[in-house]
């Protein structure tokens, strides 16, 4: 699965510079890309179901990693070419081995639940990619897992991989009615303590989650791929007026207020830079902060007279702070 992030996504700070080592066609429209460290070093390990953000030109897209995540020497993603999309997938499809790319460190937002008695994985189309990662990890650690995979005839990516990995625990469907029938059976026959994971187009995920809910599955056992939720979005640009000096500081999208103040040579006390510790609180004199921190109480947030400048932004074009 893919999701578009802003080019200045925070995840790309501290990113990896990798070389494209291998390109393999999965289907006429889905191509796999394997990246390695140019010096041949191992890559950071990752939680099954993780994604990376790949910079292509001025676009940055998130793609699921397809390995188990255990001590990887390479990262592999599979990309569906979307000709009328943002352009990221088409740019990637034009790359040849040897190309250098900026790839974020892996980010986990679709992890398997460690206490699950069984993992029921349900994928459609390119949604197979995080499931491949889950299946590989389950095989390596000896966890119980099965896969229901729906794809259009001739468009099934990673079929050889999943057939070898899953054996008897794989069920393939190539049309909607047989998928719905297979889904109904699977939802009714899982052992207590099973967790369900679904990835595919939004309508497909809605169908699966609705059917599971109707079949009595509690929401806490249902998991769908939520790209982008691990990061705060870069936000709208705004400016702040510093009341003591009268200076105006511009805060671009993707830059935090704290970073903008630091870039202007100002010293603000800080510790966590995550909106938790409370160290970088600043008094607000005018304007309405967009509170994104975990520090201020609901009452304090409603009062709008303070802001945690490491994560929070402005709802208006301008803020005035006592600084």
């Amino acid at each position, binding site marked *: 699965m893919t999701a578009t992030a802003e080019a200045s996504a925070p995840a790309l700070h501290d990113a990896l510079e990798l070389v494209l080592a291998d390109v393999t066609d999965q289907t006429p429209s889905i191509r796999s890309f394997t990246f390695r460290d140019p010096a041949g070093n191992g890559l950071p390990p990752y939680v099954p179901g993780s994604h990376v953000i790949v910079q292509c030109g001025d676009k940055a897209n998130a793609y699921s990693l397809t390995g188990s995540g255990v001590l990887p020497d390479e990262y592999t993603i599979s990309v569906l070419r979307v000709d009328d999309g943002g352009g990221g997938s088409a740019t990637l499809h034009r790359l040849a081995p040897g190309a250098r790319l900026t790839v974020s460190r892996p980010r986990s937002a679709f992890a398997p639940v460690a206490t699950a008695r069984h993992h029921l994985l349900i994928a459609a189309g390119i949604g197979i990619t995080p499931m491949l990662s889950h299946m590989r990890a389950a095989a390596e650690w000896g966890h119980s897992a099965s896969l229901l995979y729906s794809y259009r005839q001739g468009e099934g990516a990673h079929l050889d991989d999943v057939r070898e990995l899953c054996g008897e625990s794989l069920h393939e469907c190539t049309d909607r009615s047989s998928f719905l029938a297979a889904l109904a059976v699977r939802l009714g026959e899982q052992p207590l303590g099973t967790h369900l994971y679904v990835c595919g187009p939004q309508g497909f995920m809605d169908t699966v989650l609705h059917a599971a809910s109707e079949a009595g599955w509690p929401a806490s056992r249902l998991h769908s791929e939520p790209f982008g939720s691990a990061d705060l979005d870069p936000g709208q640009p705004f400016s702040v007026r510093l009341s003591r000096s009268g200076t105006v500081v511009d805060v671009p999208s993707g830059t935090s207020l704290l970073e903008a103040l630091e870039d202007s040579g100002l010293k603000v006390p800080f510790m966590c830079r995550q909106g*938790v510790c409370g160290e970088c609180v600043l008094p607000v004199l005018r304007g309405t902060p967009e509170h994104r921190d975990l520090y201020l109480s609901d009452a304090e947030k409603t009062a709008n007279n303070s802001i945690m400048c490491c994560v929070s932004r402005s709802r208006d074009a301008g803020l005035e702070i006592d600084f």
Partner: protein
Amino acid sequence: MLSTQGSTLTPSVQRFPFPFREDSYRYSTNVEPAPQFVSTDAGGWGDRLIEIDPHYRSELEERAAILDRDPSRIAMLAHMGPAVWDTITTLLPVLAADYPDVMSFTRERRRCHWRNDLLRLDINFVIGDASTLPMEPLRFIASQIQDDIALLDQREGALWLDAGVITFAADWSLGFDVGMRFLEVHGPVPRVHEEQIITRAQQFLMRLQPGEKYRRTNWTMTVDRRLDTSTETYPQWGPDRLEVVDDPELPKRLHLRVEVQHLIRLPQSGAILFLVRTHMISLAEISAVPAWRQRLGRVLAELPEDMADYKGISRYRDAAANWLLGG
């Protein structure tokens, strides 16, 4: 700033993580990225994730003896196996990088070689195969570092204390807490719930990304340099807290106990590794650093009664504050 008498201070004082930034102390979610060096009035600390000091062998021997005597100090729920291996493959390379003269770690796929000259250990093992280690994997990693270990699994929108090796607890019990939610573990701490400190800490931990490392300090006091002040051994150390008040040896016996706690999102399992390293120096040692002597004296004198009670220091804190402030 390094004080003028810095050179005459013992290494354990120079490297002591003195935790007070002001003359009063309240709970806060005081996390910061790790490792990073912090300078103090006696020297500084914090440039390494795992600190090895002159007590290394004796503390590890003490841990081994405690685990032999009381197996309830080590606990692991069945689903935490991958998190334990993740802990091993995360920490051994860090140790080898920080102490290259005495430790080395190499890996070829899943086959690992670990050498620790401080313990005269030289082993080959295979990741995921417990039979290739000299003892169970969780106990093995706890035999290489002075830190206590807790592992938190993340699920159902919460963190769960599902594994650990805790031999040097400051009056709590792993056997009692294992399997609890993070919020339940912290249930007895005063004030922090009204102030939402634990809820915020949990939110912060749940948002940590793979490989991210943070730290915080916590503190209490202990009579004599006793690492094992767990709930299980309370009858052995509880009475000392009253007895020390009138002891002329109080400045030597009473120790400031500081925990440097590291919070690490493990990269493969997604579990949170929580390391608790305990450092202790006596009031007598603290008095060699005048700024510390005065600051600790003021903190103890000002500390609200409920916080002193929870820390278990209310019997002797006035005596300690009076001595430190020269009264």
